[in-house]
């Protein structure tokens, strides 16, 4: 089963996604695709909270901030994967080495769809950043548009699409395995 989770910040997306990924794994290997590249103490603290949250849940962590398909090298692709999060992966691909890559959205969307196709089960976590009245600069607006493209493409290829609201799932497509 392939699933997309999105929703607001600190709404319980990761915790629910971890539970789903574990159920989907059954007896197969369980992998955590960690996409954040830490830049400061705040990032390191955020990562530490996520590491603690999934401690003892049986995940093998694969750190992969860019080129997400490389994460499949040497792993059992028939296992269950949790990718947390699409947001930071796109950020790393779009803004790196002092450049802004405006092609990143289409490329990452394509790579994520291929990843989705190649694995046994996967849960993607993204962030819903589309309903405010802020008027952003071109870089931010381009990033927002690119993330939405990734989300829509993943929603198309996934069996299940869920919005998490304060820990409560709202289903847009398919069912939860819980």
């Amino acid at each position, binding site marked *: 089963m392939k699933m997309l989770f999105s929703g607001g910040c600190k709404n319980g997306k990761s915790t629910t996604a971890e539970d789903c990924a574990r159920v989907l794994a059954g007896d197969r290997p369980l992998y955590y695709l960690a996409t954040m590249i830490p830049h400061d103490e705040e990032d390191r603290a955020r990562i530490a909270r996520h590491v603690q949250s999934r401690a003892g849940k049986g995940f093998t962590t694969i750190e992969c901030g860019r080129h997400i398909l490389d994460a499949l090298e040497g792993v059992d692709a028939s296992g269950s994967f949790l990718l947390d999060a699409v947001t930071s992966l796109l950020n790393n691909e779009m803004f790196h080495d002092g450049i802004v890559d405006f092609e990143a959205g289409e490329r990452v969307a394509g790579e994520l769809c291929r990843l989705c196709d190649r694995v046994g089960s996967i849960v993607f976590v993204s962030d*819903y950043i589309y*309903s*405010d*009245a802020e008027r952003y600069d071109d870089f931010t607006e381009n990033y*927002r548009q690119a993330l939405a493209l990734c989300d*829509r493409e993943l*929603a198309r290829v996934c069996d299940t*699409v869920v919005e998490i609201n304060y820990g409560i799932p709202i289903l847009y497509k398919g069912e939860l395995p819980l």
Partner: protein
Amino acid sequence: MELIIGGAYQGKLTYAKTVLGIPESEVCDCGAGDIDLSRRCLYHYEQYLYRCAERDEAPVLPTRPDAVVIADDVSCGVVPMDSVVRAWRELCGRTLTAIALQSETVTRLYCGIPKRLKG
């Protein structure tokens, strides 16, 4: 009347064209020019509302009984610092709530997927 709402880039216009079968010739892009109430589909209605907020004018509401209003939801962020943006955000909330009340159908798009909120 039908209201299609959702965050930015969620597939609202694609839904109107493919599912409701609205041709390009019936779409008025209110983000690109003035509102044209003779067209069936009022796209980026929130951008029309922005100009109303700038001019401190009351918005016109769709008149065609088969009108399809498409608007970005701008209601969920922090209260904006800029007074025009603040007025716009409130005008969007009030106007779209009034349009939703008059609509037979209200649909929210999420990651390209429609969810019927009314009708």
